[in-house]
């Protein structure tokens, strides 16, 4: 198979999902006529029509709630919220309804809803389009959080999310849209983390837009890179296995440091592998500042390969 881009993989996944199941429909702001803010859904309106590729008004709360209702009513909606920052307008429906309904109803109503959104920085989109809040969503029981970082996951995770009976939030990374890779025939799950590079000196735990940065840093420090892929529920078994071998770990997370996902991963490593460690677990997160516009400042705010290398060296100092 020839190489395709992350963006093309996302589009292929949507196309396959719409073709495969009549109950699937896509709705969101500018998914149809405009072709998707990031051109992910380009061409799908022409192929599937306005009932199944449905443009919505700018009503994140309304159409995410309608997605929940449609899921309850027997459909398999894919709701696109342009960016994670905008998803905050729909937070009530995601957190107070989608995540709670099954438990609150004593197991009577599952919500087979998929919500997709762009997240993360790297394109100079400034503070209201660049934050990385997926770890924040990972706090909430009742939803699943997935973060495709490879072309294979960009293509495969959507189908797995649609097959899941519970709400799944899919976070897509504009910083990765132009990256290319090969698709494989391997089945994609939304339950496990994966080793993306073997190494012996340190375990680098990351996900999403930071994966290429961790891989780059790993070249320099002989790191083993683990892609979490799924932020809720977390699968740390491969991380613990790796730490037993490397005896050191750095968590690389584009979210802010305080109260973030990196802290959760570090705590679990401490709980499960404290005596395997030769150094405290370290982390590289975004600086605690709203994302700035200027390129050099944006770069300074984000985790970078050099910062990861420095953190690893700190463990050997």
């Amino acid at each position, binding site marked *: 198979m020839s190489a395709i881009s992350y963006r093309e993989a996302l589009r292929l996944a949507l196309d396959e999902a719409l073709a495969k199941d009549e109950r699937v429909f896509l709705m969101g702001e500018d998914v149809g006529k405009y072709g998707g803010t990031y051109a992910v859904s380009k061409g799908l309106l022409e192929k599937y029509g306005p009932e199944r590729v449905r443009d919505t008004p700018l009503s994140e709360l309304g159409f995410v709630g309608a997605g929940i209702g*449609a899921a309850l009513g027997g459909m398999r909606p894919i709701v696109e919220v342009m960016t994670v920052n905008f998803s905050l307008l729909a937070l009530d429906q995601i957190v107070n309804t989608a995540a709670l309904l099954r438990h609150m*109803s*004593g197991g009577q109503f599952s919500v087979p809803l998929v919500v997709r959104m762009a997240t993360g920085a790297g394109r100079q989109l400034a503070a209201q389009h660049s934050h990385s809040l997926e770890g924040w969503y990972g706090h909430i029981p009742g939803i699943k959080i997935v973060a495709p970082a490879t072309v294979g996951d960009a293509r495969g995770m959507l189908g797995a999310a649609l097959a899941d009976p519970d709400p799944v939030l899919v976070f897509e990374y504009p910083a990765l849209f132009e990256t290319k890779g090969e698709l494989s025939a391997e089945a994609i799950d939304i339950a496990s983390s994966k080793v993306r590079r073997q190494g012996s000196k340190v375990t680098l735990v990351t996900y999403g837009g930071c994966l290429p940065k961790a891989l780059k840093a790993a070249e320099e420090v002989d790191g083993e890179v683990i892609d979490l892929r799924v932020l809720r529920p977390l699968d740390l078994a491969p991380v613990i296995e790796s730490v037993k071998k490397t005896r050191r770990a750095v968590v690389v997370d584009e979210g802010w440091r305080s109260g973030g996902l990196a802290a959760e991963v570090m705590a679990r490593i401490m709980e499960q592998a404290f005596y395997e460690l030769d150094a405290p677990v370290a982390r590289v997160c975004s600086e605690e500042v709203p994302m700035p516009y200027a390129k050099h400042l944006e770069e300074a705010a984000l985790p970078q390969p050099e910062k990861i290398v420095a953190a690893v060296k700190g463990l050997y100092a």
Partner: protein
Amino acid sequence: MKVPPPPSGKVGLPAELSLALLADMLRIRRMEEKCAELYSEGKIRGFLHLYIGEEAVAAGAMRALAPEDNVIATYREHGHALLRGVSMDAIMAEMYGKREGCSGGRGGSMHLFDAAARFYGGNAIVGGGLPLAAGLALAAKLQKDKRVTACFFGEGAVAEGAFHESMNLAQLWQLPVAYLCENNLYAMGTALERSESQTDLCAKAASYGMATLKVDGMDVAAVHETAQRAREYAAKKGPIFVELQTYRFRAHSMFDPELYRDKAEIEQWKTRGPIHTFTARLKAQKQLTEERFLELDGAAQAEVDKAVAFAEAGTWEPAEDLTKDVYTPA
């Protein structure tokens, strides 16, 4: 606000239907009076929002719906659940927090659910059910189902963005949904004119191009006729908004000292009480005798006694099962 005169005049419904509506209202009233008692005894805890005074709305509307329709309600939904077909046993057990409750003890008073009755809750976020109703209606439309979605909510919800977004979506997409606004004049303790620049609720829906109806929510016969029209409209034409003007006789919840309204106002509204005014009208037109009334009331009371016994005999879910319904088992 000037309190209108009590509902009066001839009830034009078939006698049998009128008696059924009366029985429905009595079932809610007796159940909730018992709930208040059980709350004082500590058998029911949490928030308990009573519907007493507003029964004509749920009674009149629910009998206008078809079995295949979807129903969404708020945290003041005991009556809606009951008349939609959730057993009083299961409702009472839920209030007790027992496993036999209609939400397995996970929901309580504010979160009654029943998949078989297509009763989607029990939503305690004001306005939270409105987008959901639009989505259920969208699913029905896409699947070419004949079902209508009926969404009950209070007038407090019209201040929420969810209301406006839902009105727009429903009208834009011509969804088969009836938005039934129970206007009891107070959002908790805030009177309508203290919170809304536009107090004509139908005007708000109409501004989205939506069809509207307004009815005296204390008159069960009028509610029923209006709800039938609304259901038919939603099924054949598109979304519709109905304002049902009603009044809550009890406090907002069991914790409310009612500092925000006069006792005299409550007493005046009680003269419009949906049960006694309807009873008097049916008696006046010789469709109801005192004996028949006592029979209906006795049956409601017996149902309550049975439900309490059921709830008392219910069991507690083992705490080991705490997390079993967070995700769907594989």
